[in-house]
């Protein structure tokens, strides 16, 4: 008769070293029934999936790739907690599938040894037999099974070979009750463990009758010289226990079993004994295709040149593809907006839908093509194995900044858009490095800043040429702004590493996996996953902020107050138009004047809107930067997304929303308006815009965190509100100071 447990789903954990094809195996087992989330409180991704086999349901958990179960951070603690059933948000694990790489069984067995100690039903999957064969290595799985005492299945996850046998072995293993097997540790160590069993009790047991702490956990505590596990498991409840641990460790050192070195010695010796007769290797190392490729790709000069060329290709594709797609999206949203305008009467709802919703959604979608293309390149490079080589080539450069080579590609991606760059920091295992990279990423000049740069530089920086036309002042200013972003990012990274993010850095040891053809399925799936993640978290935020900004620019929409002063002019112009016969050349002129009047009305609406008034209220704050309230207004309005500032300036300066500021004509019109703008209360009229003002606006945009989407992505990747708030704070402060200094110094130099 089936018991209730047979109908419940079984929880299976998937564990293994990095680069063993674990994710591929996970995908092969669960297919599309995957879910990616976050473990609360840590940045580790939680990947779960569902598998049905022979009438049983399995919940699979894909643990992050690990070399050892010794936890040194909260992130690493997740795997240990999960396997021991200590996590509230996960059911206790019923079985473990440990995936090992056929080409490097020695090291993989280290982790396996730790896993076997846990006493859970375990199945070993030996993956990448084909890669091992290329190196001349052959594995006797049957003998390995004999030596280990647990089922061993040879698989090739990428070709789905052996997966059904794995599922069968798993079904059998769950029914068995595994015997702990002999311990790899020497006698003195095990004696200390027995001694500690009487002293330590499992804190999680709620009842009075305390459960004894399992031996495997006591072993881990003894070996935990970092103190991390001790803090997590014992806390302050049993300070006597800590003393006992220390005494035990001292005794072990005297008995020539020093902690933690004894673990590596014991387990590697065990691995050597276990693999006796299992692995046949050639005497000499056989060079593979990967090695031949690496001779070129890791070459100090040629490797870097190839890398540079590759980056140029990536960026060109991102910009081209992005431009194309943005063109379609813009046309589409414009058409939709116009259609809505014909359908609906003028009013708040129409304005909300056209400017707020369509504008906001269009803004989000316009990010998407760039992001997807960049994700695709990153996914392909990661999958084929080239990313590790890129990290190697750039390591020397990044070390100077206090980071490692793995931060290079994420930071470089930020020149297109910070969002994929920040999401790409997942490859950086060191939490501190990853956080530093995320926090300085928005300083890299992203493509959204370019419209503002182009507008202001063309309008206010004189077009002086040097070196016979080779260099232009305008071009140099652009380069200068890019450099400003880079230099500030470097400085910020150095400062962060010394202050807020101080801590230990683990040694830089990175595997270079064998090259393989990237699987289109994996790459496309990853791109779709990341893209959807972006739409969900950033999209909703941008949309809501866009609507808020729209409301601030629209309300209070008092038609009588605003339009009244213009009515007379409108009436006279309209009667002029009516009196002129059709075909009269003067009609065009009158129509243009009417349109201009409409623009002025739109500008007047903005001025008395909430945002307009806010702009005037904050004017004293932005005056030291050389800005008047209109500029302040436009800058505030561009906080959801930077590109908005150009359009907002257009409206504020009475060019109207229809003015196509992207076109030559529109741009020159706007530039003319900017040149002519004067301070409201100045008599005689004083010009608002001059070179120091333009520069201060440019510097502000270079350094300010004005992208709600980026902040939303930071929130998701760091799993807390603290870091996006910190980023916003420090960047806005930097931007304000930078703009202030630029304006004051500029005025002092020119004045």
């Amino acid at each position, binding site marked *: 008769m089936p018991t209730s447990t047979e109908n419940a789903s079984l929880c299976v954990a998937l564990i293994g070293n990095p680069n063993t094809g674990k994710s591929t195996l996970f995908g092969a087992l669960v297919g599309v029934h995957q879910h990616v989330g976050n473990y609360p409180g840590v940045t580790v991704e939680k990947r779960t999936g569902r598998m049905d086999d022979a009438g049983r349901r399995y919940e699979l958990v894909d643990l992050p790739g690990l070399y050892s179960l010794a936890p040194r951070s909260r992130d690493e603690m997740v795997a240990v907690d999960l396997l021991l059933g200590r996590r509230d948000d996960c059911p206790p694990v019923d079985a473990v599938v440990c995936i090992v790489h056929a*080409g490097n069984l020695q090291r993989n067995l280290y982790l396996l040894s730790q896993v076997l100690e846990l006493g859970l039903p375990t199945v070993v999957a030996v993956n990448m037999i084909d890669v091992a064969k290329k190196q001349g290595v052959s594995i006797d799985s049957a003998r390995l099974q004999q030596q280990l005492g647990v089922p061993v299945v040879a698989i090739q996850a990428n070709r789905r070979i052996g997966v059904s046998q794995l599922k069968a072995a798993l079904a059998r293993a769950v029914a068995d009750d595994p015997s702990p097997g002999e311990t790899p540790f020497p006698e003195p160590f095990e004696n200390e463990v027995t001694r500690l069993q009487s002293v330590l009790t499992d804190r999680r047991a709620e009842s009075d009758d305390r459960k004894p702490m399992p031996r495997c956990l006591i072993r881990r505590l003894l070996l935990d*010289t970092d103190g991390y596990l001790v803090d997590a498991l014992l806390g302050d409840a049993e300070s006597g226990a800590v003393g006992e641990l220390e005494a035990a460790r001292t005794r072990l050192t005297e008995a020539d079993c020093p902690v933690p070195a004894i673990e590596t010695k014991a387990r590697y010796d065990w691995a050597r004994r276990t693999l006796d007769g299992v692995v046949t290797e050639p005497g000499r*190392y056989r060079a593979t295709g990967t090695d031949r490729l*690496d001779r070129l790709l890791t070459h100090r000069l040629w490797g870097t040149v190839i890398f540079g060329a590759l980056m140029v290709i990536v960026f060109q594709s991102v910009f081209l593809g992005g431009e194309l797609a943005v063109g379609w999206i813009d046309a589409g949203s414009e058409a939709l907006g116009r259609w809505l305008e014909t359908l609906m009467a003028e009013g708040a709802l129409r304005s909300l839908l056209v400017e707020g919703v369509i504008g906001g959604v269009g803004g989000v979608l316009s990010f998407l093509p760039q992001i997807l293309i960049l994700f695709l390149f990153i996914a392909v490079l990661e999958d084929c194995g080239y990313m590790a080589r890129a990290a190697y080539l750039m390591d020397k450069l990044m070390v100077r900044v206090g980071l490692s080579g793995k931060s290079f590609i994420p930071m470089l991606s930020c020149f297109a858009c910070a969002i994929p760059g920040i999401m790409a920091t997942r490859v950086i295992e060191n939490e501190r490095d990853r956080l530093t990279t995320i926090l300085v990423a928005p300083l890299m000049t992203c493509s959204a800043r370019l419209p503002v740069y182009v507008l202001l530089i063309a309008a206010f920086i004189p077009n002086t040429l040097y070196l016979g036309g080779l260099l232009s002042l305008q071009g140099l200013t652009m380069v200068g702004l890019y450099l400003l972003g880079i230099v500030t990012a470097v400085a910020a990274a150095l400062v962060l590493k010394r202050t807020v993010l101080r801590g230990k850095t683990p040694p830089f040891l990175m595997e270079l996996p064998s090259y393989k053809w990237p699987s289109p399925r994996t790459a496309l799936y990853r791109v779709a996953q990341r893209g959807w993640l972006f739409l969900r978290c950033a999209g909703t935020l941008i949309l809501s902020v866009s609507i808020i900004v729209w409301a601030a620019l629209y309300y209070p929409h008092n038609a009588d107050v605003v339009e009244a002063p213009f009515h007379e002019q409108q009436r006279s112009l309209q009667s002029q138009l009516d009196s002129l016969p059709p075909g009269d050349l003067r009609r065009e002129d009158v129509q243009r004047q009417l349109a201009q009047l409409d623009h002025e009305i739109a500008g007047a609406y903005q001025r008395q809107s909430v945002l307009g008034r806010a702009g005037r209220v904050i004017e004293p704050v932005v005056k030291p930067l050389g800005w008047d309230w209109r500029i302040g207004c436009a800058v505030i309005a561009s906080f959801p997304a930077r590109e908005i500032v150009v359009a907002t300036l257009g409206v504020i300066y009475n060019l109207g929303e229809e003015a196509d500021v992207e076109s030559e004509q529109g741009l020159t019109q706007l530039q003319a308006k900017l040149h002519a703008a004067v301070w409201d209360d100045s008599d005689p009229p004083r010009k608002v815009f001059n070179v120091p003002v333009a520069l201060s606006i440019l510097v502000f945009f270079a350094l300010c965190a004005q992208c709600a989407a980026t902040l939303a992505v930071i929130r998701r990747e760091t799993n807390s509100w603290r870091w996006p708030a910190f980023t916003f704070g420090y960047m806005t402060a930097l931007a304000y100071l930078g703009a202030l200094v630029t304006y004051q110094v500029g005025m002092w130099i020119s004045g």
Partner: protein
Amino acid sequence: MIVIDKSIPLNDLPTGTSAFVSRITGRPDHVHRLEEFGLRGGTRIEMFRPGNPCIIRMAGNKVCFRADDLLRVLVEPDAASD
């Protein structure tokens, strides 16, 4: 009897030379991490690309390793390698 220690720093190993790891010095937790990874006394390695960071072959894989002031890997070149 004088025992000559023929160990040299890992980064000084010429390309293509194989060697045995003789000793790793540095902070205990760093050393332990390297050992967990398999870089420990007696491990056989072959230099693929010297420098800092260097690329070495170890147990059939290639690994990129960066030494710093505190962390040093000393190796003894394999007399039999050519």
